[in-house]
């Protein structure tokens, strides 16, 4: 099965974290990225830089900001080829954002 893991950041601020935690986070992300089956994505710029586009009756409506509220916005993603959902849930639980007030959405990808 192929999964896309959508990483949403919570409201935890970097400065609020202990020095030890600040050191652990990049190491944990590195460990996730180097897990067999993982294809790392690219980090996104913050949601404040996002633009959202809707089309209503042929008219394009452009608004400033992300589609969902800023604090829940998507911040990154990765692809994971795994045996089953349990394996994907385990990987998701190792992503630091998941324990820092954010969340990781696990989405199966359609078989092409």
């Amino acid at each position, binding site marked *: 099965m192929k999964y896309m893991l959508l990483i949403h950041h919570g409201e935890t601020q970097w400065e609020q974290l202990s020095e030890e935690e600040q050191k652990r986070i990049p190491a944990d992300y590195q460990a996730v990225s180097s897990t067999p089956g993982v294809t790392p994505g690219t980090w996104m710029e913050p949601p404040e830089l996002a633009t959202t586009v809707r089309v209503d009756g042929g008219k394009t409506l452009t608004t400033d900001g992300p589609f969902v509220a800023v604090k829940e916005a998507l911040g990154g993603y990765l692809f994971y080829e*795994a*045996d089953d*959902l349990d394996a994907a849930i385990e990987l998701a639980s190792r992503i630091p954002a998941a324990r820092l007030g954010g969340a990781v959405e696990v989405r199966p990808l359609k078989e092409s």
Partner: protein
Amino acid sequence: MLASLIGFLGDFELAEEAAQDAFAIAAERWPREGAPSNPRAWLVTTGRNRAIDRIRRERTLTEKTRLLELPEAMEDAMDETPIPDERLELVFTCCHPALELDTQVALTLRTLGGLDSDEIARAFLVSEQTMAKRLVRARQKIKRAGIPFRVPPAHLLPDRLDAVLAVVYLIFNEGYGGRSHLADEAIRLGHALAELMPDEPEVHALLALMLITDARREARFDDGVIVLLRDQDRSLWNLDQIATGRAALDRALALGGRGIYALHAAIASLHAEDPQDWPQLAALYAELARRTGSPVVRLNEAAAIAEAGDVAAALVLVESLELEQYHYHHSTRAELLRRVDRVDEARAAYGRALELVHSDAERCFLQQRLAELA
């Protein structure tokens, strides 16, 4: 039978179709040729073969190669083949936390309990259509999101087993409120789990809890009015079932069971004794409250303390709890106030309980108590 087919095919929808095919063939053939010596094995084998035919016809299902590699099965010659019991894998799939709790319950009842979707719909007060949709969505999620069909590995087992036990206990409690076929179904599931996981203490503890609680079923209602434990006609209790429950509890304790269900079951067992050991009950409730942090359990602890003789201490405990919207909080407080002759306050508390109560049986009970105060 459905569990075996799902296990073999790894696909809920295909398994259901195959099972229907097998029953249709049986309905046509058995009256003519007589039933086979092992009907279940015959149905599973026939269902498998029908499924293989279906898959062969639908070439696009490439992921089913596991199935295609199997040698052609001989329908009637396989009557005595032992069929592996795959209910355990199935229960973990049905109770996977990636499914909504309501869906877990419905799937468990449908695939392991053998209830059909309109029975489940009636039991949970939703339309047949809603329930059918929910089940279809669940099967699609299992298949397309890759929810595994297997007993979880050791590091995941405790959490996943908790989820399974919670589903079974939820079904039991739905039944305990009056829909007794659900309680029967939950007990049947409890027996099956105990057979499938003989070394898990909490599985035996849950079975014990359900058996002992359910053994008092006949005594619990009188003309639709709830009868308090201490007023129950004990001759209506099913003593054999209490004994079976206690044996399950002993097994749980012998396996080192000290979990939530073991505590619950020990409490249920003590309640079935005459006279009840109230100080011991109060201690068990206190331990359970400590583990669960549940104010409702604290309320039960208070009731036990009162029965043990210390009504004043019980009242202090009850009044410290934040359960403003819970009718038992008010009815328990009312009962304690009545015992210390604070009649006006008791009356007000019964009134508040009556405002919050939902079940007719409980309303009748509260009205009776209120009338007795006057």
